[in-house]
């Protein structure tokens, strides 16, 4: 399976980093994906790296993640996504779940 790597950068209006140093959610299984979030000093920006077998949807990945970053005011975070053909509903859900997990207190389930 040939994989494409996409890299993006986003900036929210009032960026706020995550509580945990790093966090991980999801599994790269058929129709699903894993999300890694790492706290990083990026001058308020969010960087995203997507590894996906899907071809021709680069613009949609960018729009989806941008929407997530802007709506949730995410900043100073490096996001890594390892995708296996997830549809937007799954991406949408996993990103939000990953953010909640990354902001959950230690030992607490998001």
């Amino acid at each position, binding site marked *: 399976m040939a994989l494409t790597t996409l890299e993006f950068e986003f900036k929210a209006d009032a960026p706020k980093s995550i509580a945990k140093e790093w966090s991980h959610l999801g599994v790269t299984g058929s*129709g*699903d994906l894993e999300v890694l979030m790492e706290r990083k000093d990026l001058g308020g920006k969010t960087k995203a790296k997507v590894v996906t077998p*899907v071809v021709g*949807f680069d613009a*949609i990945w960018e*729009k*989806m993640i941008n929407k997530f970053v802007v709506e949730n005011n995410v900043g100073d975070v490096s996001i890594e996504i390892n995708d296996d*053909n997830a*549809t*937007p*509903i*799954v991406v*949408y*859900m996993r990103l*939000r*779940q990953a953010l*909640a*997990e990354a902001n959950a207190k230690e030992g607490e389930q*998001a």
Partner: protein
Amino acid sequence: MEFKGVKREWNTLKKDADARLKDAAPYVKEGKIVDAKDTVALLEAVIKPGDKVNIEGNNQKQADFLAKCLCQVDVKKIHDLHMVQSVLTLPEHLDVFEKGIAKKLDMSFSGPQAKRIAEFLQEGKLELGAIHTYLELYGRYFVDLTPRVALVVATKADRNGNLYTGFSTEDTPVIVEATKFRQGIVIAQVNEIVDELPRVDIPGDWVDFVIESPKPFYIEPLFTRDPALITDAQVLKGMMAIKGIYAEYGVKSLNHGIGFDTAAIELLLPTYGEELGLKGKICTNFILNPHPTLIPAIESGWVESIHSFGGELGMEDYVAARSDIFFVGPDGSMRSNRAFSQTAGHYAIDMFIGGTLQIDPYGNSSTATATRVAGFGGAPNMGCDAKGRRHSSDAWLKVGDEYGMKEEMYGNVRRGKRLVVQLAETFREKLAPGFVEELDAFALAKNAKLPIEPVMIYGDDLTHIITEEGIAYLHKCRSMEERTAAIRGIAGFTEVGMKADPKMTKHLRETGVIKTATDLGIDINRANRSMLAAKNVHDLVEWSGGLYNPPAKFRNW
């Protein structure tokens, strides 16, 4: 006054049928019994070129032996038949056109044969009358599509032709009644000829011949969904549907279709639904097949009644043991008369909810693709506002009261409205868009030379769309412009969604025409499979107290 009637014979149909029956007499062994080996000869005796012929083919049980035999008749003797049947599932249903035995087709649904129908249309091997809903086609059986010969299927028969259709009654009563009472001929294949039937579903004097088929009729467990295959995303959509629609409108009577989305909802009732305090307030009366995934809700006391279009393999004993809920005969087995179930689905329920492949900016939705003539079965019959409805319910009145165009359309009369809901995703598997500027139905209409685009649910009947972006409450819109804006607002990054005006979408959110999962107060972190009341088929068997007996392909333990 002088009465001048036409001079003609008034019983030619009867005379013709009698002549055909006489030709068939040599093949009758005893009573109405014909040997399986004489079936082709029997068909050649009773069918004439150009006849309207029905092969009972539902979405579940199939008159498969009779379909095979019809393919073997001599095309010099029998040709140009006009097939009138609800479902084309078996290869034989199309082989009769390939061989020239049949010429014209009127139908409802074609599933696996959809591609071949399109090809045959192109090649001129088949003329298509129309693609109907089930109830619409049954209606035409009594108007201009009455079968001359019906090839039906039953579980058991006696030597006098009485039939037991039992759990899988489906289309048999409506086909036989239309055929026999217009002097047609009825042939039934049965699994078994017995001395005494559990009950009589079709009286023997409406049936001309019974044939014990070499093998039991083919039946598909079409409505069995393995909970193990339900995804977290389906749980999320289910939670949105329950909170944003079922609870919002207090939907008590409804239909669920075949998909995993509604299976997820069924399995969320005893968990999420219970938590929201909805028991007794929603989902009390269903029109649906006996879905195994509904067992946990039934066992938890959610459901008061279920009427079924057909049976479902493995659910026989469970249904028989729950006669307070299902429609069970004096013999102890369910009867599933599809015509009545479809009537109930059209007039007597408050909500239809189902899935689709494509929705356009007007809200028209269709599962049609450019190269498949598939039809929609019962969906358009239930997925519409029944304009003849005159009884009210809270859910129906609430939608009617919220209808944004009621003054323009109704004047000052208070009217209700059926909830017609489509569960969609902006992009499905293989990233096929769920929203398109023009439905593939247009290309199909062109390719197959259809006079109208095969649209499953018309936009003016659609009240709600659920996607991961949110719920659009389309009936609240006051114009087509607003409706289109609402659809674009939940269409994500599809070509339809890209044209959304963010200001307009924001306005629609403020006025409650669009609600996101957050607006609905849904905690997205809880959208996972642990919310399901059963995680796999084995759990369903446990819930049923061992009464559900799943087919082998669903037994993986």
